[in-house]
């Protein structure tokens, strides 16, 4: 893995999210707890809703357009909806957020 610094933890409000532009498309970084972040595709497979604008609860995100709910651990849609978003390795180093550059870069090169 090649970890890339994408910003400070405090740039994302608690239970909020921010978007990162990557070669594989827009990736949303979710801050689910004081020191817990997840990264997943910003695009809802249903109608392309911007997931970084949704409501973060537990380790889940609700799409702002039609309330699809995804588990951020697996990327699986929950409840009656069927769908999947890509998830990406992300970690916290002190006060910084790092994402796996290979995971968000390689795919576009292919």
């Amino acid at each position, binding site marked *: 893995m090649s970890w*890339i610094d994408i910003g400070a933890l405090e740039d994302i409000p608690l239970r909020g999210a*921010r978007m990162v532009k990557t070669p594989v498309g827009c990736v949303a*970084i979710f801050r689910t707890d004081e020191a817990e972040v997840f990264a997943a595709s910003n695009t809802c497979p249903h109608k392309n809703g911007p997931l970084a604008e*949704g*409501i973060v609860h537990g380790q889940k995100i609700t799409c702002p357009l039609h309330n699809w709910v995804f588990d951020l651990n697996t990327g699986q849609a929950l409840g009656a909806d069927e769908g999947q978003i890509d998830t990406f390795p992300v970690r916290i180093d002190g006060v910084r957020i790092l994402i796996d550059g290979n995971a968000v870069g390689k795919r576009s090169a292919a």
Partner: protein
Amino acid sequence: MVEILGMSQKLVIIGAGMASGRALEHLFEMAPDAYEVTLFNAEPRGCYNRIMLSPVLSGEKTYQEIVTHDQAWYEANGVTCRFGEKVAKIDRAAKTVTAENGDVLSYDKLIIASGSNPFIIPLPGHDLEGVIAYRDLEDTERMMGLGEGHRAVVIGGGLLGLEAAAGMQARGVDVTVVHIMGHLMERQLDEAAGYLLRKELVSRGINVLVASNSKEIVGENGKVKALRLDNGTELPCDLLVMAVGIRPNTALAKEAGLATGRGIHVDDQMITSDENILALGECVEHDGAIFGLVAPLYDQAKVAAATLLGSDARFVQKDVSTKLKVTGCDLFSAGDFAEGEDREDIVFRDPARGVYKRLVLQDDKLIGAVMYGDTADGNWFFGMIKDGTDVSEMRDTLIFGPAYQGGAAVDPLSAVAALPDDTEICGCNGVCKSQIVTAINGGAEDLGSVRSTTKASASCGTCTSLVEQLLEVTLGDSYAAPAAQPVCGCTDLTHEDVRRLIKSQELKSQAAVWQELGWQTPNGCHVCRPAINFYLLADWPLEYQDDPQSRFINERKHANIQKDGTFSVVPRMWGGITNPNELRAIADAAEKYDVPTVKVTGGQRIDLLGVKGEDLPYIWADLNRAGLVSGHAYSKGLRTVKTCVGTDHCRFGTQDSTGLGIKLEQALWGSWTPHKVKLAVSGCPRNCAEATCKDVGVVCVDSGYQVSVGGAAGMDLKETERLAEAETEQEAIDLTIAFVQLYRENAKYLDRAYKWVAKVGLDWVKEQVVDDLENRQALIERFEISQSIYRKDPWAEHAAEPRAYAPLADLTLEAAE
């Protein structure tokens, strides 16, 4: 025996408590004309559900909600009510009673249901002002009136004492409980469960002293000042509540020469030593026992009614179970749980969850159960105690409850379906499954009608979910789920419950709501979070800080998201009035940010559609410079006030409708509401501003302003209803603001005003806003306090922080390098 043909007999009842009330219901049901009833009650009111006084005290219910028989009921059944009157004397030889005022009434049958008196420990100072018991509505009101920041001491850590303490604590009173025994509720709980209960109460801020002896009540100027314990500790207080037990009220019976012991002696038919006098309720002694819980009282009532009608019935004492009515303290106890040589215990503990369960077995039968923290299986265990079920086969998994018997977990519906017909569902009222199913098949298709036909779940309400499951099983798909739905999967509480508890328990943060109201998820979900966020900011505008992360995107971004992920921008145009300068700024912004669509909205505003998210702070800053502010076209808040030109230009105009519209918009803008709020002001009844389909509409007439509310022109179409006629413009503004504030304080999140008005009734709204001038003023003042925080332009704030609208990082640039 001689029957007087064609004439009903005279029945006099002393005491209108729950037992006699229930006896009357049975009597009228079986033979409505058999007796001419006169009902005396020392309390100045009829029958109410006394066991629900604690939820009234804590603010979870109102007194009106616990009234079981109202004036109309007594009238319909021809009961002569003598409320607030005591009976002074019974003359058994003459078969008369003498009222306090000297009236003499003859009876054919007399029922004594004089209840019990709270026991007051004769400590020095027990007669001081401010020393009360916890028995009736007056006591409850005394405690409710104490007010935040005052101090109270409760002597007695039993059921009633703890409910009193928790109720007052929920109202902000500083409460200390003094209990003489080593652990709380020792008659219902063992030591371990008592400890968990104490821990819970202490964590809520209630001071709990066990193994403590009261010595003296200290007073000042005839008023209670403190309680002194025998170890010298002094507990200052403004109110002292004694809840140490009850004594059957036998005075009248004793004077009349009836046989009494601890209570009035009755036989299995509820007849006293005089064949024409019956007694029931807390005043009686049957086979050596006296009664304080409601279930046996209701059994007695049934028997007494049968006896009055000459039919055969027998009162049999049964085991009873107990639940504490304190929200958040889940405990259950039933049967006998004292330790003994021939008894065995099965114990389960989960300290992290605060769960404790203990079953007591004797001869392979369950004889007692104590549960704390998780009481879901309580009724199942209670059923086995009552039935004397042999549990040797399931002993290994018994404590895990019915779900673990017979392998796979059973879903609740099939479990209910499998219950035998004679299973008791409602312990308070002794209603079994077959009665409920019969009622449902007879047309009782919702909880309310099952309650009114069978009484099931109509007392303490703990069996409500079982009754609902029976409805579901019996009616199948045709069962319409009750209107009172929980907010979401995170909680079992309804929106109404949550709003009430936020106010009564003074919950001022989301974390407090999740914790205190037992949320089942760590931090809510997309359904409850926006609702809770609104309730908190509406109820505690100064204390609570709005949480953008709990808002739908439109409100967080202060713009409407469109289906392609771009946004629309709508500047406010006060009352629909604009000018060349503003129009020029809008035109410039539209060009500068490549806005693809410019449209005039239905609310008399200009909408710039298709703005990119990251451009938002910049277009706002540009519009701000021209004096334009956010139009809140995205918010559950004040949207627009639409106007016509009124007297300024129109030859029909009767008042300055544009001016009033602008004033209203300037007063209301920025306020958050349960759903969007749209207003309009028309200058004459021709109503060009279409005011009569708005949330609030004002139609100007020669004599003033017609203010009407609750209109709709969306999914539903509905004309407004007249709230009031205002003579002056100021009055029209006041009425509007007070109405909006009432809506903010009471409505369910996402209920438009018309839905809310339909629920609470326009009459109630009028009482609050129109008739009660003091209340109208108070509503306006609370609205102003809230507006001191929220009447501001979000665009200006957000334009200063453009970084939040940009991507956190752009890795495409690095990749291109």
